[in-house]
């Protein structure tokens, strides 16, 4: 029998999604169709990429790189998820004071939206991994192991984030235990051929056919299960944030009026979840730089690994904008200010806030791992489109601080929108290039379309059409 809390949270999410679909039926239908169609398209893309990599996959560095890319990105996503997980506080004070234990609120807030997110992402992940590996000696089972390894990386990143939270919240024993886990991870990787992949290293060798794919699958499954349980146990017993000596925040302007963009920037960037995610993004980006520098992949492999990893954490800034502006709706509604200015400020703050950690990581990665202008252009386009997708997701499913699992629901919406957007770009952009348009122009058009869609969604959330 499901717990009443689980049932209540599920009911809230279903009603929320139903309300969203009723409010914007056409965009919801388009996203649903694209998410459903994505696995089919990804099977085709996976086969093409797999065919191109098949000749090189015998090399251990290529095997490692094929696993490391999605694993590191998933770890970053897991860390961002853990850092933004509100815990029992999101139940509200009344339910938060209930005698339901420490695990029930966490699980209730995690499982339902995670299941929604998994519905959007898992079929595509499985389709792309299996079709990619079909062309490799390891075959489809090794592809399934790659998908499970990517899933395992989510709680791995989350546990790493819990370790960091333990450090800053003074839980020394826990921090040391997690550090011990990291050392054990590296030792397991050292023994099996890839330090950064740890116990997931057999997945890499399974792609090349030197390890049984079934064994790799079993390893990845066991690791994901163990890490998932570890995360739930650590997240449910987190220490409260340490109260810091109150330091007055920096004044927005020396005196007089506070301009709307400055107010929006303060609203978003003074949030602890945004700050934690930005620091986490830089941390994971540095890890990506180190791994890229130590590996044998040529430039700009390290740069791309570092910046795309950082981007996933950095998008939290864009994800929160919709909720932050919607929470202050009473002010924007009452103030004699054009709401378009508020929307433009939100979009600008989201894009800039998401770009900043990536830029910092990119500078470091360029210095240590090397980069070229086309790679910088690719990352810039990814930052703009990724942030815009996050802005749209945060506006469609606002990141609220008062509902259990709300952040997870926003993440799920981001996954769905990003997947649908990628598929749409994959369908349209090559045709524009075939018409003779330069790559840079097509990238610019795609970025402008994403930013426009984000602005439109945010505007709808704030009721721009009403003014």
């Amino acid at each position, binding site marked *: 029998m499901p717990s*009443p*809390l689980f049932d*209540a949270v599920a*009911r*809230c*999410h279903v*009603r*929320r999604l139903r*309300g969203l679909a009723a409010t914007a039926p056409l965009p919801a239908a388009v996203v649903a169709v694209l998410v459903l169609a994505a696995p089919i398209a990804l099977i085709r893309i996976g086969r093409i990429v797999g065919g191109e990599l098949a000749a090189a996959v015998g090399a251990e560095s290529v095997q490692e790189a094929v696993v490391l890319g999605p694993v590191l990105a998933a770890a970053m996503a897991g860390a961002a998820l853990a850092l933004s997980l509100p815990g029992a506080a*999101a*139940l*509200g*004070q*009344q*339910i*938060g*004071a*209930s*005698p*339901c*234990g420490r695990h029930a609120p966490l699980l209730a807030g995690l499982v339902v939206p995670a299941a929604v997110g998994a519905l959007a992402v898992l079929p595509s992940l499985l389709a792309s991994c299996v079709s990619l590996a079909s062309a490799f000696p390891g075959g489809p089972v090794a592809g399934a192991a790659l998908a499970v390894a990517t899933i395992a990386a989510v709680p791995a990143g989350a546990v790493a984030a819990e370790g960091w939270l333990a450090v800053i919240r003074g839980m020394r024993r826990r921090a040391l235990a997690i550090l011990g886990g990291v050392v054990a991870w590296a030792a397991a990787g050292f023994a099996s051929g890839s330090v950064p992949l740890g116990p997931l290293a057999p997945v890499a060798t399974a792609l090349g056919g030197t390890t049984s794919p079934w064994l790799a699958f079993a390893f990845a499954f066991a690791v994901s299960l163990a890490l998932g349980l570890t995360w739930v146990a650590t997240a449910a017993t987190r220490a*409260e944030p340490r*109260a*810091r*000596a*109150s330091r007055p925040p920096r004044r927005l302007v020396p005196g007089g009026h506070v301009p709307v963009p400055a107010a929006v920037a303060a609203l978003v960037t003074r949030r602890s979840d945004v700050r934690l995610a930005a620091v986490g993004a830089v941390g994971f980006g540095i890890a990506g730089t180190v791994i890229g520098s130590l590996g044998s992949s040529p430039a700009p492999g390290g740069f791309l690994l570092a910046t795309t990893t950082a981007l996933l954490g950095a998008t939290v800034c864009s994800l929160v904008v919709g909720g932050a502006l919607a929470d202050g709706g009473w002010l924007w509604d009452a103030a004699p200010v054009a709401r378009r200015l508020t929307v433009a400020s939100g979009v600008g703050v989201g894009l800039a806030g998401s770009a900043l950690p990536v830029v910092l990581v990119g500078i470091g990665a360029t210095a240590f791992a090397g980069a070229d202008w086309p790679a910088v252009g690719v990352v810039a386009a990814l930052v703009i489109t990724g942030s815009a997708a996050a802005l749209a997701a945060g506006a469609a499913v606002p990141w609220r601080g*008062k*509902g*259990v699992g709300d952040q997870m629901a926003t993440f799920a919406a981001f996954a769905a929108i990003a997947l649908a957007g990628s598929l749409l770009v994959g369908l349209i952009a090559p045709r524009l290039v075939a018409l003779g348009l330069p790559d840079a122009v097509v990238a610019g058009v795609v970025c402008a379309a994403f930013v426009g869609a984000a602005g439109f969604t945010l505007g709808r959330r704030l009721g721009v059409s009403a003014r």
Partner: protein
Amino acid sequence: MSAATRYETDGRAALGRSPAPLPLALDVAGVSKRFGAAPALAGVDLRVNAGTVVGLVGPNGSGKTTLLHAAAGLLAFDEGSIRVGGVPAGSRAARAATALVPDEPAGFDELTVAEFVALVHALWGAGESARARARLLTVAFGLDARLDQRLGSLSRGLRRQASSVAALSLAPALVLVDEATATLDPEAVVVLSEALGALAGRGCGVLLATQDLHFAGTVCDEIVLLHRGVVVDGGETWELLERHTADTLEDVFLATLGDGRLRERVRDAFAAL
């Protein structure tokens, strides 16, 4: 029989039926809590006996909500001890013996009033008697017509009423009510005061924080004055009035916690407006 009449004939009796002897509902001893450098509570001692209503009165930021949240197990404190019915606050047993009506009921916007009350009952393992009390309280607050409305669609006052129905119907050993009358209409305030009195009559201990001194004077058996995290005075209403040779609790409040000449001073200052 109208809903209101039904409440009048059955309600008080049901809420106040069969008072059972209970241990000390809440025992706060030497509790301190700091937020960074700022002390929120500094060595607070407070007791709520079973069957009594204690009012926590103090200026904004005096630590009332912090104390209630610590008693409810929502907040860890730095020093001292808090026991609910003899067990440490925050433990499962203490939580099961406590119900909180928060200042700002939040979360679960998509649940209806009836579903929210049912959720609270399920989490606290409440039985048929709690459901009966909830029906009475719902009618008394006039929420019976809104049982199928979602919490997110209610005004803050109505949402607080729904929260009150859920919490008070549990009739646990300790009831904590934050900003008791905030956003409530006069009728709801009457219902709340009667409900708290009835709960105390059946042996519940009630600790309420309020800025409404008239409400505190009417409902509370004892009043505790909190200022900057310190208990500066306390006792029964008549004791406080006598000790401060005051006519009203407002005079006691201003003399003890504020500026006795506030009204005149501000009036003079505002003359410039």
